[in-house]
């Protein structure tokens, strides 16, 4: 956009329709909250949300099916290209699954405003209130996630970032059980999120100062032409990186992840752990490959350090965790590290595309497994709600062999054992990394995955090799939604682990043209 002559903007509605559908549905949801009687809301919101996500997915597929566009949509503000469409696909499916998880009153507070244990709390519970705002919030967040990786200039990206994050901040605070933890998670996530987005914004400002534009294309162009303001550039890039790395939870910006994942309602954790990671990586790739592609010699060493640190911190710290959700949080940090090795693997065009497709595949594989794992977590409960503490999981294999078996399978997938999706994800990324000449990084990667294997295995030991505790947790009779989620995730993990080729092909096609500029 150059500001001198104002031309009427053109909007490719077809391409943007997925986002439009999601946002539209979200707004309708708000209206529903406003006007529909309480007893109706849920029965409206639920289908509405699912339909919206489904519709968005369909339109995404349609958009993808009639050829990849070569120019950015909406006056170059939104780049609906292969990677975006693939990421949208993943996000929408995962969001759909997570939405199924939410379909369960037990998780969300009856009335967020009510003080825990207070009279009106009981009142709210008795009269069967349900915080149905959850659904529109979810839709807004998803909308943000769709826009985030697709945004082709930093401003849009910033807005998307906020649109994605703000609803999540709220959702984190809505757990019905363990309200204090939930609210604490919410406040921490909010403050830190705001803090980091300030960094993002400042970095954006500096880049704007450097390039005279926040358009990714323009910035990369400026890298060639502009000279003498390197400090501005580097500081800007650094702060931008901080904002993005915070979102993917890379060390040393990972501190929020364990707390938030543990405190938030598990359904929301599932959503964040899967979709937010996907969206954030999309954005990260776009910024660093499109805008800063020519700068890679400068940021690669940085990324090396971050990747190594992230992998090791994630793996090592997870070993001593005692809360299952917290452990999974650290594992997701470690996985972010593995993914970063792919981000670094730039080089020739086809090297890039292979790295990109590897990352896309990894994201898909990891997303499904994660949602599945958290879905299982929601089902293992005791008096105080979900039985988070690992010791409570002892002997689960005897109580609920099938559930424990599936969970063990997910864990093996996280650990990257062959014939699970996790293995091929790791394999693809590491292959790309080696191709990109990052062999040492891969060695660190495998060492830390060996360490990581330890705590996944530890949980299996607990579930299968230890005798069950006397007052062990009960397995909640899973709602249709939850069991569907588990089944879907397990199926995906198996299929991607045995016949990854179709998805790989899809990822390749998506990555073939790389990001449009």
């Amino acid at each position, binding site marked *: 956009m150059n500001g001198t002559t104002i031309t009427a903007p053109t909007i490719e509605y077809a391409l943007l329709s997925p986002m439009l559908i999601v946002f539209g549905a979200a707004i309708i949801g708000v209206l529903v909250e406003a006007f529909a009687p309480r007893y109706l809301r849920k029965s409206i919101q639920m289908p509405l949300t699912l339909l919206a996500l489904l519709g968005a997915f369909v339109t995404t597929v349609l958009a993808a099916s009639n050829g990849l566009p070569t120019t950015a949509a909406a006056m170059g503000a939104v780049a609906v290209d292969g990677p975006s469409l693939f990421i949208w696909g993943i996000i929408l499916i995962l969001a759909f699954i997570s939405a199924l998880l939410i379909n369960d009153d037990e998780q969300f507070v009856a009335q967020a405003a009510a003080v825990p244990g207070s009279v009106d709390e009981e009142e709210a519970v008795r009269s069967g209130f349900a915080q149905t705002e959850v659904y529109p919030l979810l839709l807004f967040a998803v909308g943000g996630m769709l826009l985030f990786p697709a945004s082709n200039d930093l401003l849009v990206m910033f807005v998307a970032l906020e649109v994605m994050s703000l609803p999540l901040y709220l959702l984190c605070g809505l757990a019905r059980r363990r309200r204090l933890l939930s609210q604490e998670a919410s406040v921490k996530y909010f*403050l830190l999120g705001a803090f980091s987005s300030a960094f993002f914004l400042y970095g954006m400002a500096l880049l704007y100062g450097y390039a005279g534009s926040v358009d990714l294309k323009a910035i990369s162009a400026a890298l060639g032409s502009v000279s003498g303001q390197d400090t501005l550039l580097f500081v800007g890039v650094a702060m931008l990186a901080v904002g993005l790395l915070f979102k993917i939870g890379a060390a040393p910006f990972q501190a*929020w992840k364990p707390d938030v994942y543990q405190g938030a309602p598990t359904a929301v954790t599932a959503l964040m752990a899967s979709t937010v990671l996907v969206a954030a990586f999309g954005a990260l790739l776009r910024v660093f490959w499109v805008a800063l592609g020519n700068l890679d010699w400068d*940021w690669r060493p*940085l990324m090396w350090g*971050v990747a190594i640190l992230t992998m090791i911190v994630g793996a*090592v*710290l997870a*070993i001593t965790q005692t809360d299952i959700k917290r452990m999974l949080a650290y594992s997701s940090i470690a996985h972010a590290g593995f993914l970063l090795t792919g981000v670094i693997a730039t080089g020739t065009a086809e090297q890039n595309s292979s790295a990109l497709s590897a990352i896309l595949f990894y994201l898909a594989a990891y997303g499904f497994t994660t949602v599945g794992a958290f879905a299982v977590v929601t089902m293992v409960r005791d008096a105080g709600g979900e039985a988070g503490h690992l010791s409570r999981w002892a002997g689960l294999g005897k109580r609920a062999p099938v559930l424990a078996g599936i969970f063990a399978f997910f864990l093996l997938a996280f650990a990257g054992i062959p014939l699970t999706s996790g293995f091929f994800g790791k394999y693809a990324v590491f292959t790309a990394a080696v191709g990109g000449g990052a062999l040492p990084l891969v060695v660190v990667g495998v060492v830390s995955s060996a360490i990581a294997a330890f705590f996944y295995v530890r949980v299996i030991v607990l579930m299968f090799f230890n005798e069950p505790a006397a007052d062990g947790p009960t397995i909640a009779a899973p709602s249709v939604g939850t069991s569907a989620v588990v089944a879907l995730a397990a199926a995906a993990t198996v299929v991607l682990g045995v016949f990854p080729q179709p998805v790989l092909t899809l990822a390749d096609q998506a990555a073939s043209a790389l990001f449009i500029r």
Partner: protein
Amino acid sequence: MESPAEIIPHSGGVIGVSWLMIALPLIGAAVLLLGGRRTDRWGHLLGVAMSLASFVVAVASFMELLGLDPEQRRRAYELYQFIPGVADMGILIDPLSISFALLITGVGSLIHIYSIGYMSHDPDRRRFFAYLNLFVAAMLLLVLSDNYVGLFIGWEGVGLASYLLIGFWQFKPSAAVAAKKAFIVNRVGDFGLLIAIFTVWTTFGSVAFGEVFGKAGEASQNTLTAIGLLLLLGACGKSAQLPLQSWLLDAMEGPTPVSALIHAATMVTAGVYLVVRSGAFFEAAPTAQLVVTIVGVATLLAGAIIGCAKDDIKKGLAGSTMSQIGYMMLGAGLGPVGYTFAIAHLITHGFFKANMFLGAGSVMHGMNDEVDMRKYGGLFPVMRITAITFIIGYLAIIGFPLLSGYFTKDGIIETAIEHNAILGWLAVVGAGITGFYMSRMVFMTFFGKRRWADDAHPHESPAVMTVPLIILSIGSIFLGGFLVLDNRFMQFLAPAVGRPEELPVFHFVSPAGLATLALVAVGAVFAWFRYGAAEVPRVAPRGSFLTTFARRDLYGDALNEALFMRPGQWLTRIAVFFDNRGIDGLVNGLAAAIGGTSGRLRRVQTGYVRSYALSILFGAAVVVGALLYVGNM
């Protein structure tokens, strides 16, 4: 000298099926072991039958061999491919192997028969016969095989049989330990034999006797010496020669027929067979030959000395066995002439020593398994046959003129003297000592006062035991003369071991012979005064240092303990400790370290949002710094 005859491929005839010698007892063993209790009633009979059958085959093959012209008397044939390209299972029938076969099956059968009586009260008699058959089969494989690998299989096979039979009464810890000891010490010898085989293989590209001996001359001196010494190590293990002698005396834990068959007549002489069979190598390696003779002499003296101090009749005999095999070794180190006498002595010894062992067994049988000669005495009247046969064997071993031992041992001594005076005369001295300790044994057992335990009612053994004694004693009388006089045996063996230019003539009167006789007489008389005429205390007196020295087997075991056992135990303990604490400790330590790091690191996650913010800010600073640094590089 004239070298041995060529080994000729053979087919057909009795020799063509001579493998039955091995197969039959093997089948016997298999039937008895697999058949289990079902075969208890007739098991021993089957065992005897198989042994006799294989004796028959041996005799038949022997006849067929005699039918051939001497130069044709080395026949070999392949049974089947064993290890393709390395070794085949093949049988070699030549004078040497057939004489062993006859000894093994003949004496073996007698001992089988004897055992029917001796083991009659043992519930596990069937198992005993199974093992005996197994032994016969293995021993025959050892001597009949036409290559070193086959020989080695038999070699270890007899080791196994010996292990099983020494430990036959395994519920006695002493027996179990003795069995184990025998096997392990033998393994040390086998180690040498294995390396020897490897060297033969890498040097000649074959392990078949037919191929390697011919080329022996071409190999380098060192190689041949190495082969010779390694073979000797193997021989020492099997034949209880110094320094691997220690197991033989313990081996007496086994039932007496076993001692007679395995630890006197046959197995322990396998070492001699090995050396004689590999003569081609030794003749080309004088050093090795010399060592052989030295080992022989050393052992013959050591065995004799040990024999002097033993009150246990079987151990006494064991000592004498050692010493007699020493003589054979000595002979085996002296080239073709020596070979002949060695083998001849081996055969006669097989007879009279088996004879005496069985006699001792018969005595024990009557004295309800008492072995301490100090508890014997004056047994002659109560068990005449046993006594007489025993005494015949005794006369034979001390070399009483015209008895077997006289010819064969004297032959060895004569040859030794003209070969190497010192060794020869030492052998003479050994003969003298033999005279002493054997006489001592006889006097303490059959003459003098009756020092029996109160509950002892000695009686003559049944015919099934005495008949073999008689047969053996007849052999002990005539065999030696028959073999040695006008070099019958030398002529017969010549195709197998070669023939010296001028054949030795047996002098009935020779300085060495006379000296030997004199010394033996002295020894015998001395023994008479100490054990025949004089009072023999029922408990052994402390005795001089020398006596204890001999009683303790010349401190052989003490030496082994000090040199191998104790250090070995320490080494083991250290290794185990190192494995648990060292290697495994390292691994677990690493794991613990990571865990600890994790435990400490997670403390950083204080839970205060402001500290998280700080970490973000810090991280941001680092990132900025890094980028600026890299960018401005």
